[in-house]
């Protein structure tokens, strides 16, 4: 049991994060103060939300490159709604954001399911289209802080039991999707489809429809994050979260999600995102140039993939009788 626990990717990653924090603490003890760690978590919350959705998509042997563009488009739409109708309750804004994100995710899912287009092509296309639509509806203009209503900007910052709502939303998403992945038939279907699409087909699972749901969930989370992002930074423009989809994929990969599908967990996505979050926040503190940050994040990705590839390598057939028990 202990052996299994140690071999688990999630535990390994947790250990790596702890080691990283310990290392930082030797040079800058203030970084590991609870209040600062809470700040790091809050800062990483959007990445966690998107990584959960991306994890599910990757699990089904797909990829969603449009998450950041979906976030930006949804963010722009709700910001413009807020400018046009400042009195609209935040609850309605939240629902609009989630619904719009879901719809955009469904577009990806339908293209993959019904037209059988490779996911990387579909989402590369929709990524560009979503960004283009932002430009069209905003005329390329920014929605600035002073145009947004106070209530619109307040929600993610409101503190609840010592943590901002943004953090609580990330925590809730982790718990809900951990439950979905482990305890629902849909969650099981995601694993089955990624593990072996052929087997899944023969057991009566509709592979395309399952992938559609994965994109839909990813879209819903991106939409939710869209509102949170725009309201937290109090600005919306065409290029917000530009390139963020790569951070999201990186978080998944570091979190042990197999790009080949079928392997991954919510805990992994969470820890992968936190690992990147700690690096991003810690390096400036310990006075390392931002260029090194990029190099270190990149190295972390390659190391994580190498470690996972080693763990997943086929053991080979056991032909020798003597090896049977040793294995």
């Amino acid at each position, binding site marked *: 049991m202990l052996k299994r626990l140690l071999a688990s990717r999630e535990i390994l990653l947790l250990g790596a994060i702890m080691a990283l924090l310990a290392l930082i603490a030797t040079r800058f003890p203030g970084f590991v103060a609870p209040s600062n760690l809470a700040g790091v978590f809050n800062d990483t919350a959007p990445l966690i939300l998107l990584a959960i959705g991306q994890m599910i998509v990757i699990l089904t042997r797909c990829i969603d490159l449009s998450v950041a563009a979906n976030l930006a488009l949804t963010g722009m739409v709700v910001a413009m709604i807020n400018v046009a109708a400042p009195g609209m309750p935040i609850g309605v804004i939240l629902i609009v954001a989630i619904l719009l994100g879901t719809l955009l995710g469904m577009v990806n899912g339908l293209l993959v399911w019904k037209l059988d287009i490779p996911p990387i092509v579909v989402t590369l296309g929709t990524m560009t289209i979503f960004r283009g639509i932002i430009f069209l509806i905003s005329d390329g203009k920014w929605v600035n802080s002073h145009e947004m209503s106070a209530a619109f900007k307040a929600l993610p910052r409101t503190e609840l039991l010592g943590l901002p709502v943004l953090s609580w939303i990330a925590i809730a998403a982790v718990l809900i999707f951990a439950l979905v992945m*482990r305890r629902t*038939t849909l969650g099981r279907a995601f*694993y089955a489809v990624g593990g072996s699409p052929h*087997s*899944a087909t*023969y057991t*009566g699972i509709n592979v395309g429809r399952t992938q559609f749901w994965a994109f839909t969930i990813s879209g819903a989370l991106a939409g939710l994050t869209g509102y949170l992002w725009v309201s937290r930074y109090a600005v919306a423009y065409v290029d917000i979260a530009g390139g963020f989809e790569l951070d999201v994929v990186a978080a998944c990969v570091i979190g042990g999600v197999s790009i080949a599908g079928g392997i991954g967990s919510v805990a992994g996505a969470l820890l992968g995102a936190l690992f990147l979050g700690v690096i991003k926040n810690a390096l400036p503190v310990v006075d390392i140039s931002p260029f090194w940050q990029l190099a270190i994040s990149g190295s972390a990705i390659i190391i994580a993939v190498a470690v996972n590839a080693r763990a997943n390598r086929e053991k080979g057939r056991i032909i020798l009788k003597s090896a049977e028990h040793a294995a």
Partner: protein
Amino acid sequence: MLMHAETAAHAARAAAPDPAPILALAKVTKEFPGVKALSDVDLRLYPGQVTALIGENGAGKSTVVKTLTGIYQPDGGEILVDGAPRRFATAQDAAAAGITAIHQETVLFDELSVAENIFLGHAPRGRFGLIDWAEMERCAEEILVGIGAQIDPKVRLRDLGIANRHLVAIARALSIDARVVIMDEPTAALSHKEIEELYELVESLKAKGKAILFISHKFDEIFRIADRFTVFRDGQLVGDGRMADVTEADLVKMMVGRDVSQIFPNRERRIGEEVLQVVGYDHPTEFADIGFTLRRGEILGFYGLVGAGRSEFMQALFGITKTSKGITKIDGRLSAIRSPADAIENGIVYVPEDRGRQGAITDLPIFQNVTLPSLKRTSKNGFLRLAEEFRLTREYTTRLDLRAASLDTNVGSLSGGNQQKVVIAKWLATQPKVIILDEPTKGIDIGSKAAVHEFMAELAAQGLAVIMVSSEIPEILGMSDRVIVMREGRIAAELAGEDLTPETLVRHAAGI
């Protein structure tokens, strides 16, 4: 060992005024764990002659091809080139000796041009060692014209049909100056006109003095183009000689006339009421007019050559391919099966041929594999009930005597036999009425085969209706109550009782 070579060559010379064989196998043996694939076999290929290699599936034909082309190393015996023993450590060694094989699915590169495919690896070089394209295309053209092929060497391979691809493969064989050409079921995917063209090509290769090994299931083509035959059965040589000296009946007898070496379970046949009725299944390109009935407790064999459309029909019946039409009645009730989920709901399950790819999901634990098709029963409103899943899994793994440390173990860490038990438990847990087993014992050793046969008999005894797709005659004969023979997408015969003999099976399957 050199003695063999001399005696073999001597024997050949004494028997007839034949030229010396270019390539020969002398007492070659090849073993795999649990199986003796080839046992002391001899084979001789003469210049300017076509030798047909005949045998059932599993007779050792593919092993011979792989041994001749350097993919397998023989465990005993020798490969002789021009009478001298040679070792082919790699496929390149065999190619260097002038041996080339054209497979059922030719190994070529879709995105390269015809000329590149022909000269890949030995392209003519110009200055600075760069490929001389003009020269390469000129040479390709020359070879293609030589074999009567009207193919532009500049065209990409993917734009060619199957017949022309074969011609390119043959052109490639000629470009490396092959002396021995092995054709492994070259006509399997060709139309009648294309087959005629292939025959002409074989004639022209003969005229050039090449030795040809022609592997085919189809007797008409063997009699049409072969000069000699070699028959294998269960990895042993059972006869060879000149085509002129034998009849079809002789060859069939050699192929199948076996001692019943495998023991099949002696089962009590309790055949019950009709459970499945299939009427008029049609597919635009794969099969037509398939209809039959199936009773409880019955094992219905589906025999045919590879490519006869058996698996394709089964996939349609199971709702995987949706372009086919047909009526399915289960227990007399009309059942609309539009997806595998519908089929499972209606009590039909399908255990596909390739267990590695289509059977168990190795990254998931045992219990998740077993309950996957039964999730509707073990879940409530979309939420899993793990206790129920473990109960169901335990029930069926115990019945199958599956031993594992925990039901939470990943299937990938189990032995092959146990993985198979997981797959069977998975299907039994759906409580099916009809179970379709597609090549259930393909590629497994004799001991495991017997276990699968036992199990099949037990399923039938419990009142399940079993459809067994198999290309192995002993298995079909040993297990089936009734056999449907398919040929070229249609039912060629339905055999039972005294009509069910190795000869009738082969005749109907090959269309003699």
